[in-house]
């Protein structure tokens, strides 16, 4: 295996895993919160929030990447103050790759978690409150355990999406080997060079293994959830 990939390609694999993990871990609580709002609360702007969450799913990824550059770049509306006040740079860094991946994965995570929350009978939450449980305790002891399989399924789906993210990432952070080059951008880069087919095939196989593994895990959790909801 070692001779199959050169160090920059190994770096791309490691970076892809790292970026996807970070993106998933940070997006999951936010996605859970948004999914809960969309599933359980009615408030003005609910449809707008729903649309906004789904936007990355329907926009061309390059457009999302461009918008990120405009908003989060060092001169961007958000990126500017972020750099001036905290010294945080996102554009052309691995952190930016994680942000792009998180945003692209977000709608998929919200959809999966929202389905799980909608499958929980709100009557159970009412029952828990009549027994003296605060809203936080109700969420932690009733809602969360019951949506856990859905939550994990959403996380895995999001992780897989983050692994495969290309358009928004390459637009926002480019593909700097060892810094922002992920598996997809490494494959794209290798395809521009003659004679690199073995490395391309190797990276493709790695991608397929990750994606299939994630998909199977997600299916497994989805089945468990169906069983749990059926009682």
């Amino acid at each position: 295996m070692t001779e199959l990939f050169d160090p920059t390609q190994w770096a791309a694999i490691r970076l892809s895993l790292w970026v996807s993990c970070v993106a998933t871990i940070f997006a999951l609580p936010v996605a859970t919160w948004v999914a809960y709002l969309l599933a359980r609360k009615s408030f003005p702007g609910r449809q707008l929030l729903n649309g906004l969450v789904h936007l990355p799913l329907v926009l061309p990824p390059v457009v999302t990447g461009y918008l990120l550059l405009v908003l989060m770049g060092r001169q961007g509306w958000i990126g500017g103050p972020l750099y001036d006040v905290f010294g945080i740079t996102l554009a052309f860094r691995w952190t930016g790759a994680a942000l792009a991946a998180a945003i692209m994965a977000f709608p998929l995570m919200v959809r999966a978690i929202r389905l799980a929350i909608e499958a929980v009978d709100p009557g159970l939450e009412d029952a828990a409150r009549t027994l003296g449980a605060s809203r936080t305790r109700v969420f932690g002891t009733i809602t969360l355990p019951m949506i856990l399989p859905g939550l994990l399924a959403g996380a895995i789906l999001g992780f897989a999406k983050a692994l495969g993210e290309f358009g928004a990432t390459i637009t926002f952070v480019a593909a700097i080997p060892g810094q922002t080059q992920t598996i997809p951008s490494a494959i794209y880069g290798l395809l521009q060079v003659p004679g690199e087919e073995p490395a391309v095939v190797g990276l493709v196989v790695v991608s397929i293994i990750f994606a299939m593994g994630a998909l199977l895990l997600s299916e497994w959790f989805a089945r468990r959830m169906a069983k749990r909801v059926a009682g």
Partner: protein
Amino acid sequence: MLDIAIKTKLGDFPLSVVFQAPKGLTAVFGRSGVGKTSLINAVAGLVTPDEGRIAVDDRVLFDSATKTNTPTQKRRAGYVFQDARLFPHMTVIQNLRYGGTHDETRVIDMLGLDALLDRRPATLSGGERQRTALARALMSDPQILLMDEPLAALDAPRKAEIMPYIERLRDEVKIPIIYVTHDVSEVARLATTLVVLDAGKVVLNGPVEQVLSDPAAVPLVGVRDAGAVIMTKVAGRMLDDNLTELAFSGGRLVLPGQFGALGQRVRVRIPAQDVIISREKPEGLSALNILRVTVSGIEQGQGPGVAVGLTAGNERILARITRRSARLLGLEVGQEVYAILKATAVGPQDVGG
């Protein structure tokens, strides 16, 4: 004591309810959709009424005048839902302890749950689920217990199985129980106080014997279900004939089956449909129960029937006869007549502790 006076909207029609529920079991009776569930949801804080006041003893749970609205989790209102609502991912004992462990041993014993503690809700029968839900509510140490048609989803044998538990609860627990139902037999067996709702208002309210024996209750309860409840004591047994004799201030009743110990208090529902009125003491009749009674009220219904209130000793019973019979008998208030009841007209579902 629960003190409730609320106004709210229920879909298109207004709900305006005022009553007090003392210790014991207060049945809130009415047809589906009259707002019974909204009423106890308001007590539990699951819905907020437009205006009014709800208090348990001197603790105000809701008062629109002072903008008091205690959140559900601080109301200490135990709630037994029609569909039990046990937490499916927890065992029975985990469910029971969710709201606290108040009086755990006694509650588990009282509801006969010892053998079920490690089971999952999905493996329980309907009756076992309701007993678990009831125990779970009690162990949270509530100040008031709300029950929303807890037996409606059960078949007759399951109902019969769980009724004695609720009777025991009513007699042993020292908090008011609000019991929503649209089933008269549950009211007759379980209630100490009865509140009848119709068209969003309280139309009858009082001790159950008094309300059910009021001829005005007949159209509200339904002509086929109407019937007074009387309190009696087991006075004897007729083992050879498999009958039980009951005594009360108005005489004696003989009913089929063996139930209760000698001297035990037994409440009996006497279906108004099955009471026959005679001006003279009948002879040569198969019916076992002939009581000397006084006509205390006659209520014209909308149909061909009338409801006749009868006094037997200190108890009141109801008879439903046709308007034509009432006219032919020349019935009037104060008249002394005989009430005749076939023993077999009273089934086991009409007899309670």
